[in-house]
């Protein structure tokens, strides 16, 4: 483990930025989100979760995957794939870092069908996490065995009073550390122990820390699916895509063609299962009702995803949906409402 006075962080950022483009939570136009660092940027590492999760660094909201020109009956296809430049994300929270591991299950794990666009971004990105000094009341990452006091990624950091502690976890992380280590001095893990214990103490007081997902398994699929709770909990859902788009683990996408006037771009873009046209076909729609669409989102996260991925839920407990849903519906309420279905 290494350490550095907080007063030298700007120098550190500048050094990292000379190695690879550095992104971190910045305040710009009264919005705090991950953005390109510069020496005069307004850094907001105090902000726990940015509204938009940093998933779009790997799975962009929209991405051009192919370009076509047509000439009579002929189609000319252009390879528009561009090289991804090496980059680093600083200040990623433990929950968001874990969300990338879940996205890997979708986009990388199936060796027959690796998403190479995602893959090249993953390969070129280094994730530097920061422990959460002050978890919010909406946090429940502990439910998914994520430790806000001990975040993952390629490198973990802790900002404790005037000191930044730095610990490489992966080969990629050590590679970067090697290049910048002249800035640091050695530290001992015992130096952060008290701080970690303090964070764990807060986590122990969080309102949703005891949320139980027992019984949300593939075996209970039909019972959960057929629950009469759905109607009650979905009733005032606005069918908007807020939860989907701010969720770090939502990964459904659409592929659409966009005519720029000069050529046709084929675009892979985020989609939401809450939208009516998500499953609309020329001859009908298997999910015409709000209930069916609402149910799909939560069944996917709590039952289908774990069934297909060795029990991993498609949620990291970041609490964004708890904070941002216009009608205060969220995965915690759904999990509680459905708890006893399938356990009878």
């Amino acid at each position: 483990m290494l350490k550095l006075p907080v007063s030298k962080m700007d120098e550190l950022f500048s050094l990292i930025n000379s190695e690879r483009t550095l992104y971190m939570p910045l305040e710009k136009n009264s919005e705090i989100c991950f953005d390109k660092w510069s020496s005069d940027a307004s850094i907001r590492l105090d902000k726990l979760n940015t509204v938009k999760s940093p998933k779009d660094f790997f799975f962009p909201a929209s991405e051009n995957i192919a370009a076509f020109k047509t000439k009579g009956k002929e189609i000319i296809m252009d390879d528009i794939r561009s090289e991804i430049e090496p980059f680093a994300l600083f200040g990623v929270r433990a929950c968001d870092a874990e969300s990338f591991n879940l996205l890997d299950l979708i986009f990388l794990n199936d060796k027959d069908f690796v998403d190479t666009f995602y893959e090249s971004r993953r390969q070129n990105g280094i994730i530097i996490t920061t422990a959460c000094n002050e978890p919010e009341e909406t946090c429940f990452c502990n439910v998914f065995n994520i430790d806000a006091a001990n975040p993952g990624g390629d490198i973990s950091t802790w900002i404790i009073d005037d000191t930044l502690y730095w610990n490489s976890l992966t080969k990629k992380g050590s590679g970067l550390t090697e290049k910048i280590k002249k800035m640091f001095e050695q530290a001992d893990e015992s130096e952060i122990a008290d701080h970690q214990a303090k964070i764990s103490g807060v986590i122990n007081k969080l309102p949703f820390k005891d949320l139980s997902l027992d019984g949300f398994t593939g075996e209970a699929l039909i019972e959960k699916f057929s629950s009469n709770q759905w109607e009650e909990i979905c009733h005032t859902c606005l069918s908007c895509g807020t939860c989907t788009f701010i969720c770090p683990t939502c990964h459904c996408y659409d592929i659409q063609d966009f005519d720029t006037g000069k050529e046709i771009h084929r675009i892979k873009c985020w989609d939401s299962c809450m939208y009516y046209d998500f499953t609309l076909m020329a001859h009908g729609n298997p999910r015409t009702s709000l209930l069916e669409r609402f149910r799909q989102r939560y069944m996917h996260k709590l039952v289908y995803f774990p069934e297909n991925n060795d029990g991993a839920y498609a949620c990291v407990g970041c609490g964004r949906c708890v904070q941002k849903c216009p009608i205060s519906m969220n995965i915690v309420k759904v999990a509680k409402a459905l708890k006893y279905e399938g356990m009878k």
Partner: protein
Amino acid sequence: MNNKEALIPKLGIITDIRDETPDVKTFSVTALNGGVVFPHMPGQCAMLSIPGVGEAMFSICSSPTNKEFMEYSIKKAGVLTDWLHLAEIGQQITVRGPYGNAFPVEDDLKGKDILFIAGGIGLAPLRSVINYVRDHRENYGEVDIVYGARSADDLVFRKEIENEWDSKNGVKVHLTIDREQEGWDGNVGFVPGFVKSLKFTPDRTTLVCGPPIMIKFVLKTLEEMGFDSTKIYTTMELRMKCGIGKCGRCNIGSKYVCKDGPVFRCDDLAKLPDEY
């Protein structure tokens, strides 16, 4: 199969267009320099597109034994299919695939007596299997094909059925149409009832494809006739975008039709939520 660039299509060219019915055409497609765009197994699908118009999943209805070209029988139903119906020979299209699983022609179906049951355009995915079976006739037992459509004009592959399939190599075809029609001397009535009247023995391995409502009634009939659901296969169709089980929309429960399907064994399908 290693298809790392699954979302990036290849180019193909339409080399022949045949009218099957007033709203179904069969398109022959080859790679730009001839031959199939990629090899496939019976039941698998491909994503076809006209850039700027749309991209959609279609069943490959030619047999893998045909190495010269691929065929797609396409019903006019939406923007892309309307466009394709106006296309001419020589039109280039984009093709990616093959996607999904296939009918178990090399394992579960081998050596078995097979019953094919199809309705309307649902014969298209089965045609690939039927021709595969016909081309490897020695590997399979008796073959019966029950096929129905709204009217005689809506029967697809009519010439092929009459000239190539029926009464050759021990393949029997049983046709039916929904309503009486002048010039039709075959059976009249819906597919499920027709299947019942033909009194097939329940030891058959059965492949069913057609409109969802027909599939539901056929499965009920087969159950009544004592067929074992572990020997009945069907194919599903839902909206698809990626074809590789990632874009998240074609799922029935935790199964993705594009990846885990489109072919489902009926006992497996029965375990999934009824949302298709």
